[in-house]
């Protein structure tokens, strides 16, 4: 009797496992379909390969555990927004860590900006810092428009706003970024 019960239990477990497996196959399909775009956007936000891998992993982990393992209604939008949020969190953590270390090791006044202001890495890092400081609604638009290269219509659909609003948000984001970058520059000088 006991053997039979164990046998039925195993069969039942196998059945459940197969069902879960089939129901979550969409995660792999989503990875296949949107993975390259996600890696590109994460790379552009973070600029560091290990951080990209970590953010990518966190995105899919969240995707697998949200909605009780079910598929969200707009998978692409969910993935892009999750990836963007995770990447910005990593970026903020990295910046805080860097600031703490630089304050501990050297006096800030000793660190001078590179002679060549157009030094690409310096400019990119400064831009990333400023993007991480943007309010969420502006940051989402600038990330999706300029880093993921999506159209305003697609961004509108993803964020639940109109294309015109997305356009206005981008304009505001650019204004804020330029203001902050100029201010930083003046402070350093």
């Amino acid at each position, binding site marked *: 009797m006991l053997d039979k019960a164990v046998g039925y239990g195993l069969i039942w477990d196998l059945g459940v496992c197969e069902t879960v497996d089939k129901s*979550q196959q969409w995660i*792999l399909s989503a990875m296949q379909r949107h*993975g390259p775009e996600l890696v590109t956007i994460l790379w*552009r936000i973070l600029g560091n*390969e290990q951080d990209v891998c970590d953010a990518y992993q966190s995105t899919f982990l969240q995707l697998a555990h949200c909605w009780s393992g079910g598929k969200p209604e707009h998978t692409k939008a969910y993935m892009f927004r999750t990836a963007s949020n995770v990447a910005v969190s990593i970026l903020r953590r990295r910046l805080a860590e860097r600031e703490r270390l630089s304050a501990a090791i050297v006096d800030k006044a000793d660190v001078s900006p590179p002679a060549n202001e157009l030094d690409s890495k310096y400019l*990119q890092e400064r831009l990333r810092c400023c993007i991480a400081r943007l309010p969420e609604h502006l940051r989402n638009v600038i990330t999706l428009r300029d880093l993921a*290269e999506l159209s305003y219509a697609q961004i509108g659909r993803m964020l639940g706003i109109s294309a015109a609003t997305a356009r206005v948000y981008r304009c505001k984001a650019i204004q804020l970024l330029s203001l902050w970058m100029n201010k930083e520059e003046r402070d350093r000088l």
Partner: protein
Amino acid sequence: MNKTQDSRPETQVTNYQLPITSYQSPGLRLNKCRQIRAWLRNAIRNYLGPDADWVQDHIGNCPRCHRRFVSVGKINLALSLVKSQPHKPDLLMRANSQAIGVLKHSLREAPKAQKLKSMRPEPKLLEICSMHKSSATNIAACIAILFLMKTSIFSFMDTFQAQGQKAVRQYYVNHVGEDLANDIFGS
């Protein structure tokens, strides 16, 4: 009584529409609307955009606007720099492997997962097409020339030449006589 829904006045002009000379299908009208919108957008951009002459003149003379323009330009430059930095081709493969590693066992062992672990970024169809754009244009031009040779334009040229020759021959017949004209044109 016999008027159908499709019958429309010959010319309709409203304060926001271009004249509709005859009945147009909704698709055609939609296309026209789209064209007009694009035209308006371009016109506004040309007249009010940062490249317009009067804007450039002002920026050249106003230090405050000049500063703003430069700082916005710097942001655009930084964004293009960020976009132009390529990542290593195996980054997608590594990211997939790491992400699949934390999924449940049944997903990790799926054949698709194995394929994803060795996946590399591939250019999109549009990018592939744009690479072969010039050769495709050349081939299309050759096909168009062949088609024209086979059909209308060259036969039209032949007809045109024959008609011209006939007119000149008639002129000679009238002025120097038919015998001499036959000698000249060889018939």
